[in-house]
């Protein structure tokens, strides 16, 4: 048991080390001006998608429920974050603080949505649960495309659905403008903030998983009825995992939206939810370090393939299929195993020789 825990710890530690090393390398490359600007512009999206993948992995990998609407939480976080950042622009002048406040607010709002959505969703099982998360994702998208929010000079908020709020006085500013979304956002997201968010997410997830709560959640995943029989409060623990996952996604959404001067609800559609799910499945369910690598690789890949011009997305599709086949095919698996064994054997031999 002790050994197992230690192995776990090593794996967790390696995740931190990977992230930190990657961050340092990137910073050095930027400092040395050795990084093309395309890759520089990808740093923040990569961070965001890593966090999204980590948070979804909490639902899919640890809790064991398929969610097809995770981008909805990202959307909630994004809109809240930007609205807060715009509203508080004059109050908080330090951009890092403004960003932090926006991210926290995004996370809180997403958590509230997580609770509202979690109550009905978590009563269902399997594919039916998945379809309801999809439905919620679409509902959130549809609501945000029709949401109008203005702020009057005195700082009061006015909200309208479908049409602009009618009580809007002269001189007020539109914050959220229906399908136009939010324009003229001040870009305050930084790579460092992204890095910190990844680290915080990792700390939260690893600590939750290791705690009593985490063990209860995994017990539910592995055998719900048995867990219930031992007296684990199913709803409570399921909800904890789901809301936590939503909150982290909300923070990521805020970071994402504050990296672009414009944001619209259509970005957070079903396709984005699926993309994040792909990161999680490719990296391995429950495997955080896998999620990190998969999210980074699959976000950079389509951009790195730009030299293929018209055939870019075709090549991307083929690469995606090939990666999947390569990592799951029995013949290839055997091949990898053989190599591994050979290496291990060699090591043993060397060890013997040393003796």
């Amino acid at each position, binding site marked *: 048991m002790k050994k197992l825990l230690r192995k776990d710890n090593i794996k967790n530690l390696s995740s931190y080390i990977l992230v930190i090393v990657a961050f340092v390398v990137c910073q050095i490359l930027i400092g040395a001006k050795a990084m093309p600007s395309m890759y520089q512009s990808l740093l923040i999206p990569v961070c965001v998608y890593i966090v999204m993948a980590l948070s979804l992995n909490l639902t*899919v990998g640890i809790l064991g429920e*398929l969610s097809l609407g995770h981008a909805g939480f990202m959307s909630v976080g994004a809109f809240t974050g930007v609205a807060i950042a715009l509203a508080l622009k004059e109050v908080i002048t330090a951009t890092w603080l403004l960003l932090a406040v926006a991210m926290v607010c995004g996370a809180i709002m997403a958590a509230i949505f997580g609770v509202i959505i979690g109550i*009905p969703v978590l*009563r*269902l*099982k399997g*594919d*039916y649960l*998945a*379809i*309801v998360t*999809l*439905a*919620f994702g*679409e*509902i959130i*998208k*549809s*609501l945000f495309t*029709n949401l109008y929010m203005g702020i009057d000079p005195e700082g009061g908020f006015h909200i309208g*659905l*479908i049409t602009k709020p009618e009580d809007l006085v002269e001189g007020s500013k539109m914050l959220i403008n229906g399908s136009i979304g939010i324009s003229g956002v001040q870009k305050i997201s930084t790579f460092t903030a992204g890095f910190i968010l990844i680290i915080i997410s990792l700390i939260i997830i690893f600590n939750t998983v290791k705690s009593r709560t985490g063990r209860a959640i995994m017990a539910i995943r592995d*055998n*719900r*009825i*048995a867990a219930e*029989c031992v007296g684990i409060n199913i709803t409570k623990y399921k909800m904890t995992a789901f809301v936590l996952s939503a909150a982290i996604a909300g923070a990521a959404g805020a970071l994402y939206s504050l990296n672009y001067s414009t944001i619209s609800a259509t970005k957070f559609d*079903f396709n984005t939810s*699926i993309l994040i*799910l*792909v990161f999680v*499945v*490719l990296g391995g*369910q429950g495997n955080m370090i896998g999620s990190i690598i998969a999210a980074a690789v699959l976000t950079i890949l389509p951009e790195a393939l730009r030299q293929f011009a*018209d*055939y870019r*997305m*075709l090549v*991307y*599709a*083929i690469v*995606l*299929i090939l990666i*999947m*086949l390569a990592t*799951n*095919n*029995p013949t290839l698996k055997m091949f990898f195993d053989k190599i591994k064994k050979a290496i291990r054997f060699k090591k043993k031999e060397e060890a013997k020789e040393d003796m």
Partner: protein
Amino acid sequence: MTFLSSLISGISLGSVYAIIALGYTMVYGIAKMLNFAHGDVIMVGAYVCYFAFNSFGLPWYIGVLLSMIICTILGVVIEKLAYKPLRAAASLAVLITAIGVSYFLQNAALLLWSSSPKSFPQKFFNIGGKSGFTIFDGKLEISYTILVTIICCVVIMIALTLFTEKTKLGKAMRAVSENKEAAQLMGINVNRTISITFAIGSGLAAIAGVLLCSAYPILQPTTGSMPGIKAFTAAVFGGIGSIPGAFLGGLLLGILESFTKFYLSTQLADAIVFGILIVMLLIKPTGLLGKKIMEKV
């Protein structure tokens, strides 16, 4: 009158969803995988039929036949290359390859047939030069396309139900869907059964493609993706793996969508439809016609 016309437009939309959902439910129920490429196979089917009709001047029934053949072959090839090697892997893993295949088909179509939209011929099902008939002194018009879609849908549903209930192969499919290992022990070739399921599903996709584009005659490389998602929702809503369920789910989804647009709001149609769907699933957590599965520890 508004009620009737909204019902008819709902049924026409619903029957298109239903016919796509039937293909979805076949594959989803038996192979236990979300075949996200299904919508794109539909698109390929529609393109094949379009070119057969418009460029080669073939009669429509040959066009439909041709697109069925090509889609079936396409389905089998996809299955062989992309899904079969992952038979032993987790079902979610196959989802990624399905998404890869979906991207591939969409972008291949974009390169092959360009991004500009094509108008699908609407005269397929005209009788005597007319596109439909009217009832109630011309107050209500019903197009033949809708009629054909509904008839096709019912025929396919009955045929599929009979096929899975009565034939040996159909029973094998149900067995595979229940329990792969047990089916294998009973001497069923699981791999072959799943391959055949894909072939049938893809053949159905071709028909769905032709009907979708006859009813809503714009054809683009992305034509299949949105109806695909809706149909998938309908299939689950109807009860996974249940063929009449997929039919009912599709039809209900269409009618619901139409009623919402007619009576509530066109702007928030999607939100309201999905909201009602959620409520219905909460009342009936295993879909409309889904089986209650006893849970054992």
